[in-house]
């Protein structure tokens, strides 16, 4: 009797275990079972799954759009599924068939994933439905392309512009800077030290990832046409010399000054940083926490030869190759990203610049002094190079050497030389292997 009990318990345990291993399939089956049921009860709707990794406020913003789409027609029903670790989840799902139909996509990843044939090209849909590529920023489409194929449409566009504290600039009798020289002069004048203690930093130099942007302002580019680093030259040198003046001669900033000062204590919000480069994604934070903060935005100051530069980024919507409802997924993407009213609704709910240019004609953008500088900046902003190894090169080869240079542990010439050597190796190690 007892023996039987033990055996049966063990049997039950092992079967549940075994079921646990195949849990993914089991639950997926269940889900599809449910959805087909739901579909049959409300007519013959196609169920679409839309994955994104924005939770909290972002989730609400997405759901607003999804609800609006579901109400706009009666053939397709979209469901937003929040995935905390979306890319990892997508990796495993792309191989076992559980892919979503629409994916919220950080555009720079395109050059890494498109060669693996997991994204569905949309060029044919675009021609068929007569959607003009001119309605989007060509740079943002370039970031969604690989090998002359387009893999989705841009949902948001952003670029860095110069944020400045109006009160501090007025006190010092300054106008917002438009060139490097003016930026340096203003930053120097705005900085306040109390002995060894930095009280107000004139200009934030905490993000060395902005090297790309400064390089454009100096008239350079990060990579050559054939995929090698292109900053160990006069332009790269100009950037580092400019930084060296700001950091070591004018002492407008201190290393680590902003680290750990999150939202509510943000150094710009509390007036401890007078000017910094930031993007539209910070607008809601500054508006929320900075009740006493009066700030303005101008396009990035031009470099020594008058070159303008900023880095464009943003998100798009793509269709995974594994999706079983590509046509319907495209309908949803088209509705959201290539329609003036819907793109505008999205912009207003999420406070993002939409990827669709016609919607920016709206007074919501045209008449707002906070949006205007971004629209100007987007006219000349460039996306990061389309090389699958680019982000690794930037964070693991370039940034560490720049940090050594910023802390006076490496000369400018050596920094550029080492960044080039290590960077070229990483680009080569991480390029597309067929």
């Amino acid at each position: 009797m007892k023996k039987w009990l033990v055996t049966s318990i063990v049997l039950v345990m092992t079967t549940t275990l075994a079921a646990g291993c195949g849990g993914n399939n089991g639950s997926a089956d269940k889900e599809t079972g449910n959805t087909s049921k739901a579909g049959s009860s409300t007519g013959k709707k196609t169920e679409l799954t839309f994955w994104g990794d924005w939770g909290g406020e972002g989730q609400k913003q997405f759901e607003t759009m999804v609800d609006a789409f579901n109400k706009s027609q009666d053939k397709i029903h979209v469901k937003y599924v929040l995935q905390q670790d979306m890319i990892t989840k997508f990796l495993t799902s792309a191989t076992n068939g559980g892919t979503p139909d629409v994916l919220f996509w950080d555009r720079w990843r395109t050059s890494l994933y498109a060669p693996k044939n997991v994204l569905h090209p949309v060029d044919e849909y675009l021609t068929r439905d007569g959607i003009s590529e001119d309605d989007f920023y060509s740079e943002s489409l370039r970031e969604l392309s690989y090998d002359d194929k387009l893999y989705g449409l841009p949902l948001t566009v952003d670029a860095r512009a110069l944020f400045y504290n109006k009160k501090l600039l007025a006190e010092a009798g300054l106008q917002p800077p438009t060139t490097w020289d003016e930026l340096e002069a203003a930053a120097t004048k705005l900085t306040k030290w109390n002995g060894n203690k930095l009280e107000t930093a004139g200009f934030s130099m905490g993000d060395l990832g902005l090297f790309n942007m400064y390089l454009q302002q100096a008239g350079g580019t990060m990579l050559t046409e054939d995929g090698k680093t292109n900053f160990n030259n006069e332009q790269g040198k100009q950037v580092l010399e400019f930084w060296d003046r700001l950091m070591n001669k004018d002492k407008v900033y201190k290393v680590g000054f902003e680290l750990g000062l999150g939202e509510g204590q943000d150094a710009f919000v509390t007036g401890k940083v007078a000017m910094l480069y930031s993007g539209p994604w910070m607008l809601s934070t500054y508006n929320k926490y900075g009740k006493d903060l009066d700030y303005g935005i101008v396009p990035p100051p031009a470099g020594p030869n008058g070159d303008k530069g900023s880095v464009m980024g943003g998100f798009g919507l793509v269709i995974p190759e594994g999706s079983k409802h590509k046509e319907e997924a495209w309908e949803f993407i088209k509705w959201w990203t290539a329609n003036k009213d819907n793109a505008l609704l999205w912009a207003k709910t999420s406070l993002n610049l939409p990827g669709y240019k016609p919607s920016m004609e709206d007074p919501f953008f045209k008449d707002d002094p906070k949006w205007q500088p971004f629209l100007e900046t987007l006219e000349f902003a460039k996306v990061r190079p389309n090389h699958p190894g680019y982000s690794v090169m930037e964070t693991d080869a370039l940034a560490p050497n720049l940090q050594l240079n910023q802390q006076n542990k490496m000369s400018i010439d050596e920094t550029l030389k080492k960044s080039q050597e290590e960077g070229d190796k990483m680009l080569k190690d991480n390029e597309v292997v067929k």
Partner: protein
Amino acid sequence: MASIRKLEKHQARTAYLFITPTVLLFTVFTVIPVVMALYLSFTNYDVLSRNDWIGFDNYRRLIEDSLLWKTFRNVFLYSIIFVPFNILISLLLGILLSRSWRGVKLFRTLNYLPTLTSAVAAATVWIWLLHPEFGLVNGLLSYVGITGPAWLSETRTAMLSIIMLTLWQSVGSNMIIYLAGLQGVPDYLYESARLDGANKLACFRFITWPQLRPTTFLVSTMSIIGALQLFDQAFVLTQGGPANMTKTPVYLIYQQGFNQLQMGYASAQAFVLAVAILIFSLINMRITKAEESIV
């Protein structure tokens, strides 16, 4: 005789039944993945489209990967400082809190508390404490006239900051292990030592420390493994910077596998890390000589 054998058989069968779930779990989630990872380290697996046998190419690439060796140097440097301090501090705490003082339980609890905090939460708080201008640490230093460094952002102090945080977090649990170890030291040894006129220092040197050898072995091995697998704290506090000073192998493996889709190469890196952990555990075993019976 016969009935005893029958009983043993019966017991053996029950034992097997009871360990089956664990062994199954172990096989499915440990043995199979390890064997698969070894196989993958000889392929160009990218999760999505490729899985071809490429022989030793990944391992050849490893040799020239200066960043990987830099991360290994980082964790070795970390271990060399972290492990001895960890043992020393947790042993001292263990001895101090093994006496039956009033309120000693409260102190034990307080010392154990940091262990319960999640690594990410603790790191977030420490970023605050270590802020160059507004942080508590530099605030205290400025009272005695010292201008503290930008702990997490300067190349010479970044790793030190991570060591401080991980020590603060891990001595609590090791203290508990030492407390347990100290309770296992038989009293008659101390009694006879005292009869022979040994002082406290001699008692510690000739009784406590040798008796604690298995405990020390456990604590040091776990710290070494933990040190070589350092990830969360370095990730949250410094993101591997400044200048790659706090980048760790696990960080790099994650990045190579999931961000760059080079699972094959990441598996090769993981195997080098596994071998390194094995070697260091063996060296540690030699030093602490834990395989010898002590009593």
